């Protein structure tokens, strides 16, 4: 308990970074994924080809590798980012791709009749997606999205590779400093609390969306 109190300030700082990376990534990548899903629906051959490659790369390589590439590899193409910017760019690129695939699945699950009703009522493509398709897709995809959200919490620990200190790294430092593995237990508890809170929030959201089942 003594140890926990000593570690608390650093654990709090580390957790702040963890939550920062988590929320910025989520806030940017989830809406962005809907925009790209909509663009995908316009069936432009060239755009869809680029998107296909982008998604394949992001889902087919480890996020850790992507982090390294964005920070260490891009300077060779004259794009140099500072550490936190590289983190956000890599995370957003990665999670947007996953969300696009999830959205696509959700939209395909929507009855074709919905699209036809929109057409017949004179809805533009944008209106169709904004008002009818996306709201329904949100509900259908919520379980998959929840999974990604919880993965994201844990993926934040990968930022150590760019020397950024989030809560797991704080734990590692403490383990080395105090020569005991107990700090890992504290870090584990912090992760459990964070994932529990978000899992509950998402469950609530799921419940609220069943009003029209």
């Amino acid at each position, binding site marked *: 308990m003594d140890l926990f109190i000593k570690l608390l300030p650093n654990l709090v700082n580390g957790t702040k970074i963890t939550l920062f990376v988590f929320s910025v990534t989520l806030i940017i990548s989830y809406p962005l994924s809907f925009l790209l899903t909509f663009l995908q629906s316009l069936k432009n051959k060239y755009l869809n080809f680029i998107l296909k490659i982008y998604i394949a790369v992001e889902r087919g390589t480890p996020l850790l590798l992507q982090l390294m590439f964005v920070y260490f590899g891009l300077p060779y193409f004259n794009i140099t980012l500072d550490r936190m910017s590289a983190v956000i760019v890599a995370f957003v690129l990665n999670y947007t791709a996953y969300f696009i695939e999830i959205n696509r699945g959700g939209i395909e699950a929507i009855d074709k*009749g919905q699209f*036809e009703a929109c057409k*017949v*009522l*004179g*809805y*533009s493509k944008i209106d169709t997606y904004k008002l009818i398709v996306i*709201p329904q897709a949100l509900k259908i995809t919520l379980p998959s999205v929840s999974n990604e959200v919880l993965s994201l919490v844990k993926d934040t620990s990968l930022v150590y590779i760019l020397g950024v200190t989030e809560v797991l790294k704080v734990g590692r430092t403490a383990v080395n400093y105090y020569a005991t593995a107990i700090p890992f237990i504290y870090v584990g508890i912090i992760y459990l609390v964070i994932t529990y809170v978000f899992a509950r929030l998402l469950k609530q959201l799921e419940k609220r969306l069943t009003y*029209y089942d």
Partner: protein
Amino acid sequence: MTDILVVNNLKKAYQSNVVLNDINVVVKDQEIVSLMGTSGIGKSTLLRCINKLETIDSGEISIKGIAITDKNYQEQIGLVFQNYNLFPHLSVLENLIQPLLIKKIDKETAIKKADELLAKLNILDKKLAYPNQLSGGQKQRVAICRACMLNPKLLCFDEPTSALDAASIEDVKKTIKELSNDMAILIVTHDENFARAVSTRIIKMQDANTLN
């Protein structure tokens, strides 16, 4: 009486399969026309073409002189789908007014129109309900209201009796007759009794051509 729907030399083929071959149809104002024929003969395809849900290979379609290629065409026509296709995440009222709101019509006007139609179809009490809370017959009435929100000149029905009980079918007959005072009606159906009871004219489709 004025011509509302005019279809000339309509051809539609799916790859090498010709579904509609040189179809000519006219529906006049206040007519209730039933389009009948065996399954798969192309009556649904014809209905879909008229509603711009399918592209046509050649021919002309117009409603009150406005060609199908014109951007104002869609407003002239309304369609009540076989399975209604109501928007499940919106209330009945929202289902009705949203198509107006996106055309920048103000909310008050839209709600007024919605109330009018809901009252006419006897379903005003379900205004705030969600589609999943409605019976089949009620859903159909909402679907009819929604299709009429933009004052179409031609209202289409795709198999309106397929999911209804006898009482609801009677309601629909009455409703259609009332609506025909203000517009032309085109119904695709395989229910002969219904067609005879409600139509002013029946068109039978054989092969890829119509026969009056």
